[in-house]
């Protein structure tokens, strides 16, 4: 077909304003579901979080009578059942990183940008598709972990039910926590563009930064430690808020803020840099 023909025949369709966001979202969803690594990573997330959480919980339950009184008094059955989340957060981070770094590693980013030159659309669609997938997976992991854990906590060990005050919010909050960490990882990878480097940065934020902060004088670490994602994670899974922690709501809002800022920087760089 000639270009003139094309302009004449298809111009009315173009007038609707070009490719809409939902088309790009559909494209990104196909992208996510058509590589096996997605299924493997989500599977790993589930096995790590639910499996290791269940293992730890059944150990706690069977060793209940051997625990010291002090341990028994501070035992938090909610947190015990959700402890697997701290393993799962690494799997979701890797998934978030791969959601964009795989495009740079394989060169598909240039094909993607040729199809969708509005780069903000591409990143926004990625955030929506990955964010929704990660939220669903995170909630599945959280609720399955909770119910499996509470089932394993048998008398004399105490347990809680989903109807106990604050429990439903905590369990749902854990799913959101995982989703937000995944989005943070996606933002880091958008900035860094290399899988290994982005995963390292993500793990550093979760593991290394808390160690460094804990080595600072307690006046400083008590003030700043609560801003770390890891501390927020602790406040989400517990029924009680620690003395140097934000409440769950404030913590999750902070995480939203982190994700938005990091994704914003990533989006700015994506729009400006050569692909």
């Amino acid at each position, binding site marked *: *077909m000639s270009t003139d023909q094309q302009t004449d025949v298809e111009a009315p369709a173009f007038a609707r304003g070009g490719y809409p966001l939902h088309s790009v979202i559909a494209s990104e969803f196909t992208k996510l579901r058509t590589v096996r690594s997605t299924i493997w990573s989500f599977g790993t997330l589930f096995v790590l979080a639910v499996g290791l959480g269940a293992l730890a919980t059944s150990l706690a339950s069977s060793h209940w009578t051997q625990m010291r009184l002090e341990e028994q008094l501070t035992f938090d059955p909610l947190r015990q059942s959700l402890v697997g989340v701290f393993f799962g957060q690494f799997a979701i981070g890797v998934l978030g990183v791969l959601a964009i770094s795989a495009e740079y590693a394989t060169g598909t980013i240039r*094909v993607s940008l*040729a199809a969708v*030159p*509005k780069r903000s659309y591409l990143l926004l669609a990625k955030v929506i598709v990955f964010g929704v997938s990660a939220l669903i997976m995170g909630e599945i992991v959280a609720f399955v972990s909770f119910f499996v854990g509470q089932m394993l906590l048998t008398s004399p060990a105490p347990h809680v039910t989903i109807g106990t005050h604050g429990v439903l919010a905590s369990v749902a909050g854990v799913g959101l926590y995982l989703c937000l960490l995944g989005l943070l990882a996606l933002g880091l990878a958008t900035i860094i563009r290399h899988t290994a480097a982005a995963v390292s940065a993500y793990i550093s934020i979760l593991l290394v930064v808390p160690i460094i902060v804990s080595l600072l004088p307690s006046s400083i670490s008590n003030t700043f430690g609560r801003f770390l994602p890891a501390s927020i994670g602790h406040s989400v899974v517990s029924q009680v808020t620690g003395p140097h922690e934000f409440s769950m709501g404030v913590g999750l809002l902070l995480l939203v803020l982190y994700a938005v800022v990091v994704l914003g920087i990533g989006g700015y760089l994506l729009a400006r840099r050569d*692909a």
Partner: protein
Amino acid sequence: MIEVLNLTKRYGDKVAVENLSFSAASGVVTGFLGPNGAGKSTTMRMIIGLDRPSSGTATINGKRYVDLAWPLREVGALLEARAIHPGRSARSHLWMLAQSNQIPRTRVDEVLDIVGLTEVADQPAGKFSLGMGQRLGIAVSLLGDPGVLLFDEPVNGLDAEGIRWVRNLLISLAKEGRTLFVSSHLMSEMAQIAEEVVVIGRGRLLTQTSMNALLENNQQSFVRVRSPQIDRLEQALVAKGAKVTQEADGILQVYGLAEAAIGEIAFDEKVMLHELAPVTASLEEVFMELTEESVEYHGTERSRQ
């Protein structure tokens, strides 16, 4: 219609493309020629909006690529082979791209058929050979049935059969009236398909002309003459207005006179000839000469500044 105006791309101190202006007319195959490293790929990436120009503009049908309403339906591009996730199938790769531009699913099957990948369409692309990867790249470019196509070195790394296939495909795409802009570092490839040529060297425009004019103006033909009495013949030829250079002892290259005329002069002068052979410079020699001259020209220009 692709229009490039004063396009410049700098990486730090290094200038990849410098003040480049040319156009590729609608419905015409334009060859984009230059030695490796001349800035062809960088220029094409700027046309597609992947790289940001340091200055200047590149437009397709009067619009910047980023402003196109449905990019894949207006422009198809093959910029690098094998830009695909090794775990994803060719069909999924094409479908995810089709979705973003609302191209119907049936078109995925059509382009798979055109490039001959239907049978392996559901296998992970990691198993693909270089040639299959190239075919998939071409399938991507044809996905939106676009009127404008850009191919960067489409035959690079292909075997003879693959090269013939790409060449025939390009010719048939051109016959359908599409605008083709095809880069190559091989003149002979371009001579077979391109009507127009844009030649660049070191990021600068050397010439934009028709392929025929390029060949006529640059193709140096001469006649090789070998004779035991070469000095006497040389004097006679120069007297008749020929340009002569000595190729080796007893062998001359004669420009400006056909072999029949040279033979007559030799007969008149009673000079014995051992060889009288017309020689046409190969396309690659033409190309080398063209780009080499430009490099020297720019060298002197720079030293004058």
